[in-house]
């Protein structure tokens, strides 16, 4: 079981790199859907079959794999954009930074005082690496939609981390987190539509005029 989940987690890291390096929004959304789908397998793989894990997996798959990507696709169709043209930090530097962050998170989690059953698994380093990827995405991109993608990757990192706690966390809390995410994306999609209609661009730069 552990080997399968570790392989899946390594796949998640590869998808992270793809997300950092790709400029085409449609493929980014597809990658995120794939990542969400992989993640939705983890509860079952890590903790075995039970009502709790099955429920979690199903909901995660429905939300991360289907509902959210569908909403995002609709959003980019509405606002007619295909690619992130001018990121604040270029693709190659972001990739290098992403690599460094991933390496850093592996080193860091190696030094953490974890309980023995977690020290061998890849949950902690991959979770941290995905968090860092999300951060990088948020910092380096300009378009509102890519920022929404950044938040999604960020949330995926938290989800991986949360896997360690599935046994301890009540069901309602996790369901709440997932629902929050859905609502967040929903709002973001509406917001993007409004921004686009108002400014006829998706650049968040225009928001700097809101600063005091």
């Amino acid at each position, binding site marked *: 079981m552990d080997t399968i989940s570790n392989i899946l987690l390594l796949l998640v890291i590869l998808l992270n790199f793809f997300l950092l390096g790709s400029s085409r929004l449609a493929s980014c959304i597809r990658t995120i859907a794939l990542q969400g789908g992989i993640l939705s397998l983890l509860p079952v793989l890590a903790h075995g079959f039970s009502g709790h894990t099955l429920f979690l997996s199903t909901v995660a798959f429905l939300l991360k794999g289907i509902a959210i990507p569908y909403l995002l696709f609709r959003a980019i169709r509405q606002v007619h954009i295909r690619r992130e043209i001018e990121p604040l930090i270029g693709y190659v530097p972001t990739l290098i930074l992403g690599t460094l962050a991933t390496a850093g998170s592996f080193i860091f989690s190696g030094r953490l005082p974890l309980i023995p059953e977690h020290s061998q698994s890849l949950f902690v380093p991959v979770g941290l690496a995905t968090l860092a990827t999300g951060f990088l995405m948020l910092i380096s991109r300009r378009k509102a939609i890519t920022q929404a993608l950044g938040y999604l990757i960020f949330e995926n990192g938290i989800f991986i981390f949360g896997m360690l706690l599935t046994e301890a966390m009540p069901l309602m809390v996790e369901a709440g987190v997932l629902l929050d995410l859905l609502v967040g994306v929903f709002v973001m999609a509406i917001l993007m539509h409004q921004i686009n209609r108002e400014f006829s661009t998706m650049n*968040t730069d225009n928001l*700097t005029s809101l600063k005091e």
Partner: protein
Amino acid sequence: MAELFLAALILIFCSGLPAMAWGRWGRRGELASVILLVLGVSLALVATLAAGMQTPAPILALAWAHPAGQFVLELDGIAVLFLLPALVILGMGGIYGLGYFPQVKFGRAAGRVRLFYGILGTSVALLPVCRNGILFLMAWEVMALSCFFLILTDQKEESARRAAYVYLMATHAGTLALFALFILLAGSSGNFDFPWAATLPGATVTAGAVFLLGLFGFGMKAGMMPLHFWLPAAHANAPSHVSAFMSGVMIKMGIYGLVRITSFYSSPPAWWGWTVLALGVISAIMGVVFALAQHDIKRLLAYHSVENIGIILIGLGCALLGQSFHHPSVVALGLAGALLHVVNHGLFKSLLFLGAGSVIQATGTRMIDHYGGLLRAMPYTAFFFLGGAVAICGLPPLNGFVSEWLIYLGLLHSQTAGAISPLSLAVLAIPALAMTGALALACFVKVFGVTFLGTARRDFQIPPQEAPGSMLLPMGVLFLGCLAIGLMPWAIVPLLQRGIVSWLGTGSVAVPLITTLAPVIWISLGAILLLGIIGVVWYRQSFPEDDYQRRPATWGCGYIKGTARMQYSASSFAEQLVRLFRWGLWSDISEGRTIGFFPALARFADHTPDVVLDRLLYPTFRALTRAAFLLRSFFHQGRINVYLLYCALTLCLLLIWLI
């Protein structure tokens, strides 16, 4: 007794509600407020006096729904001495407000003042009896905030808003230190109940930290010299009866805190006493020097509060030194002087503030240089003000003399420790104390002379009139209090003795009796004799002389036809002394020099801002604000990406720190 006291406090707390609520029947609501307040104060006074006779002191302990100890009140000797003047002044201020700050003239503001005055009174009366740190801090904060709203009464004035703001900053800086203090005091036990007197060792590092934090937090409230900066503006801008209560009672809570926390320690190290003594000397001298240079009568009185706090601190420092060097007579005299001066200063300073309030109401200005010759228009106010002035200068036969005399005796007793003891250095505070008294006398000659004597300096549209009875009565009562302590100091000695016992703790060695150390009965006889002489002289003076009509004006320099402009002004009277102390005052003087035999028109103006606030704190904080704005315009870019970068960097730093 403690239950009765608590009930009285509830009455006082609610006393402002009628005045606040009955907007349409303002006068009736106001009267109901005053009746409630006076009733509560009388009940509390009865409880306090009864507690002052009871041994052991009454304690009320209730279970409390928070884990840090109990709801404990104790009316011990120290508390009684702080409560007596507080309650008297609270009641008298409430009555005074009927004439000084009536609802018909000030509308809603008057109701607000009544409400916060009641709350302030309750919190101040609660403070000395608390025996739990959390309860103390709660009362302390209620006191600070209600006082803030009272300073803000005149909220349309820029100066009042600024004073209230500075006060709020200062008091919260002090409260922060007090939080640290009580946490340190509770230690690892987590129990915030006060320890009993003299149960903690004084020589530890924690004790030193507690003392320094207390010195900062309580010193800020008391108006000790470098920390006094909030005090002049706050006292000047509040309504006069509130200033009277603040100056007479509220700042004493700082002294109370110092007295209380030093009582916890059995053998305080000598540097505590030296520090308090040195700060007391600085406060006393610089306070009175700053007072001399003021033109605003309430600012002047406020600086005199700093001076008197200094005198009290000298007494407390003397007691602490006596404690360190195991010299009980020094402890007894110093502490008795300090505690009695707390009572006395409360009485005479509130009397002076109320007198100043009457003058301000009659003339509509706070500037001393606009007054003149008010003695004829307001003879009773002038008489009471003179009484307060005599008392504050420490002259017999009034009360100020008795407490200063006890402190002098305490300092002199330090000599009996033997020539080689470092304690004998404490005697050096005596010249400072003497100089303070002399300067205070000069200052009050200036105030009384310029305000009440001479001739009127300007024509007021409404000629100044004597204050109404509701304002004269409180002044009369406070004056009688001053006179009573001056004439019969032996009556209050048992209470002082109890205060000393409470401070030293029950397990201490035999406390020397004050009556054997200081012959108060002789003071009493001397005061009565002096009063008799004054009476005889006055009686003889009151017959009109033949050349009464031809007599020139007071201070007319011998000119028969002097004008009102040819009098001493507040500046010119104090000029010589102010010049002597210009190294500490840093006055702004635009000097109009007159040269030659027929000089051209020249103008002279002087202004003495507060050294700490206006010369140090304002420039420092302005520079800090400017730096903060620069920093903000650099960091505050308005881009969400940059803010997220800050988040990420913080997270990274935290993770690195975790490793």
